[in-house]
C-alpha cells in the first residue's frame, strides 16, 4: 500500500537523474545512466534560492497570520453563549469553499490599488483569508471539546480572561494548533493560482515555477523532477517532524 503511494512520485524523482533521451523508451526501461545535468539546467534557468525563500515566506507568513487571527476567533466562538456563534463558525467554513476564480480578479485589482501587487505579501493576505477561516472553524471544534474547568481554575487563581485563554486553554489544545498549522502549510505551499497571478519574478514561489518547467514545445521532465526535489523535500521534512503532533493534535479534538 505504501508502495502504491510512493512509486509515481519516485518516477518523477528519478527523472531528475536521467538524461533526456532516456526519459522514455519503447518499450519502457527502468535502467538509465544517472546524470546531474538536469539539476545544472534548473539551477541555470531558475533562481532556486529566491523561489525557495518566496515559498517559505508565503507559507510561514500565511500560517502565522492565520493562526494569529483564527485561534482566538475559534476560542471566542467556542466559548460564546450566543446562538450565532455556531452560525458564525460555519460562515468561516463557507469562506474556504469559495472558488479561486471568483475572488481572483477583484483581489488582483484590489492589490493593485493598494500597491501590493507583485509582492509575496499579497499572496499571504489572500491565503490567510482562506486559511484563517479554516483555522477558526477547526479551533472552534477543538476548544469546544476542551473542559471549561481548566480556565475556571485559572480565573479563580486570579488570571485575567486573556491569561486563562493563553495559559490554561491554549496549551491544552497545542496539538490542535499544530494540526491546523499543518493543513494551512500544505495549502499555502501547494497553492498555484493565486501566487501565479499575484507575484512577480522575484517573489515567485516554487509551485508557480514548476509549471514553467512544463514547456509548450518540449516538456522538460528532468528539469521538472529536479525542481520538484526543492519543492517536496522541505515540506516532507516538516511533515515528518510534526507527524507525531499531527496525529495527537487531531486526536485531542475529536471525542
Amino acid at each position, binding site marked *: *500500500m*505504501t508502495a502504491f*503511494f510512493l512509486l*509515481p*512520485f519516485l*518516477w518523477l524523482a528519478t*527523472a531528475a537523474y536521467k538524461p533526456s533521451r532516456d526519459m*522514455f523508451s519503447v*518499450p*519502457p526501461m*527502468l535502467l538509465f545512466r544517472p546524470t546531474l545535468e538536469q539539476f545544472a539546467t534548473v539551477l541555470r534557468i531558475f533562481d532556486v534560492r529566491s523561489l525557495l525563500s518566496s515559498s517559505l515566506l508565503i507559507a510561514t507568513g500565511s500560517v502565522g497570520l492565520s493562526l*494569529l*487571527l483564527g485561534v482566538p*476567533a475559534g*476560542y471566542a466562538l467556542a466559548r*460564546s*453563549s450566543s446562538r450565532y456563534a455556531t452560525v*458564525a463558525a460555519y460562515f468561516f467554513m*463557507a469562506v474556504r*469553499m469559495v*472558488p479561486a*476564480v*471568483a*475572488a*481572483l*480578479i*477583484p*483581489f488582483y485589482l484590489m492589490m493593485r490599488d493598494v500597491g501590493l501587487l507583485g509582492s509575496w505579501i499579497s499572496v499571504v493576505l489572500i491565503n490567510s483569508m482562506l486559511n*484563517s477561516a479554516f483555522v477558526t472553524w477547526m479551533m472552534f*471544534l477543538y476548544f*469546544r*471539546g476542551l473542559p*471549561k474547568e481548566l480556565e*475556571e481554575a485559572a*480565573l*479563580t487563581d486570579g488570571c485575567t*480572561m*486573556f491569561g486563562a485563554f493563553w495559559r490554561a486553554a491554549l496549551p491544552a489544545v497545542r496539538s490542535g494548533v499544530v494540526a491546523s498549522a499543518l493543513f494551512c502549510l*500544505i495549502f499555502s*505551499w*501547494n497553492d498555484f493560482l493565486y501566487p501565479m497571478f499575484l507575484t512577480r519574478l522575484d517573489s515567485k514561489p516554487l509551485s508557480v515555477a*514548476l*509549471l514553467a518547467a512544463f514547456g509548450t514545445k518540449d*516538456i522538460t521532465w528532468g528539469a521538472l523532477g529536479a525542481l*520538484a526535489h526543492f*519543492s*517536496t523535500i522541505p*515540506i*516532507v521534512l516538516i*511533515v*515528518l517532524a510534526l*507527524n507525531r503532533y*499531527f*496525529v495527537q*493534535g*487531531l486526536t*485531542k*479534538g*475529536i*471525542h
Partner: protein
Amino acid sequence: MELNPDLRDHTATLSPRVALKRPVLAARSYADRRRLFLISMALPGLAYVVAVGVWPLTKGIWFSLYDYNLLKPAQTHFVGLRNYADVLDDSVARQAFSNTVVFTVSAVAVELVLGFAIALALWRDDRFNRVCLALILIPVTITPLVVGLIFRALLMPDYGLVGYYLAESGFSGPHGLFAYGSSALATLIFVDIWEWTPLVALILLAGLKALPSDIIEAARADGATGVQRLRMVIIPLMAPTIVLAVMLRTIDAFRIFDSIFVTTGGGPGNATNSLMLHAVKQGLEFFNIGLASAIANVTLLCIAVMATAFVILFRQADRRAHGS
C-alpha cells in the same frame, strides 16, 4: 468531532461557581466584560475575513450580473441574470456540472473507504506504522498540477512506463486511458484518489486513536468479531470524524481543475471538463469575467448546498454517536 458529551455545555459563560465568589454587582459587569473579551478575540479574524474575502466576493457577484469582458471594457453593460441563464442553458456547462458531480462523489467515496482501511491498518502505534504513515503522506505534499503531469507521463500509451503495458495488454484500449471519455474520467478520479486518500487516512487515523479503548475492549469481551466491532462500535463512534473528512474532501474535489488541465485539457470532447476548469478558461483565458463569475457562483452554491447537507448529517451522526 463534536466533543465530550458531558462537557458540551452550550451555556458557555462561566458557571456560577466562579461568579459567586465576586460581589453581585461585579458579576453583572463580569458577564459584560466576558462578552466584550470574547468579541474582541473574535473580531480581528472576522474583520479580516470580511475585509479581504467578502469584498472581492461581493464584487464577484456584482460582476456576474454584467456582460463584462476585460478585453473589451468599453462594451460592459448590465445584463441581470443572463450570465446565469447562459450557464444553465449551455450544454458544455451542463456536462461540466455532471462530470464534476460524478468526479466528486466517486473520488470521495473511494477515498473514504480506502482511507478507512489504511487507518485501521495503521491503528496500532509502532515504529513501522509511523514510518508508513509519513511515507504515504508524500502525495499530499505535491502540487496537484505536478501530480497530473506525473500521471500523464506514466500513462502515455506509446512510451509511458505504465501506459505502454496497459495498451499492450489491452487493458486501456490502444489510444490510452486518457483518450476515451469513460476511462479518462475514471483515470482522473484515480489520480485524485492517489493524491488525497492519505489525507483522509490521516484524519480517520486520528479519530481512531481517540476512541475510548474501554468501549472497544468491552465489545471484545462480549465476544464481538472484528467485523461486528467495526460495524456496531467503531463506525458509529467514528461518524463525526468521517463526516469531517468527507466534507473537507468534497469541498476540494468539487473545485478540481489543475490535474485535468494538464492531462486532458477537459477532453476527449468535453468528457472530463469540470465546472472549475470551465470557469478558469472563461475567466483567465478569455477574461470573460461576467460569465466566469457566474460559473464560480454556481459552483459555490453547489458546494454550500452539499456542505449544509453534510452539516446536518454531521449533527445527526454526532447525536447518534453520543446518544444525546
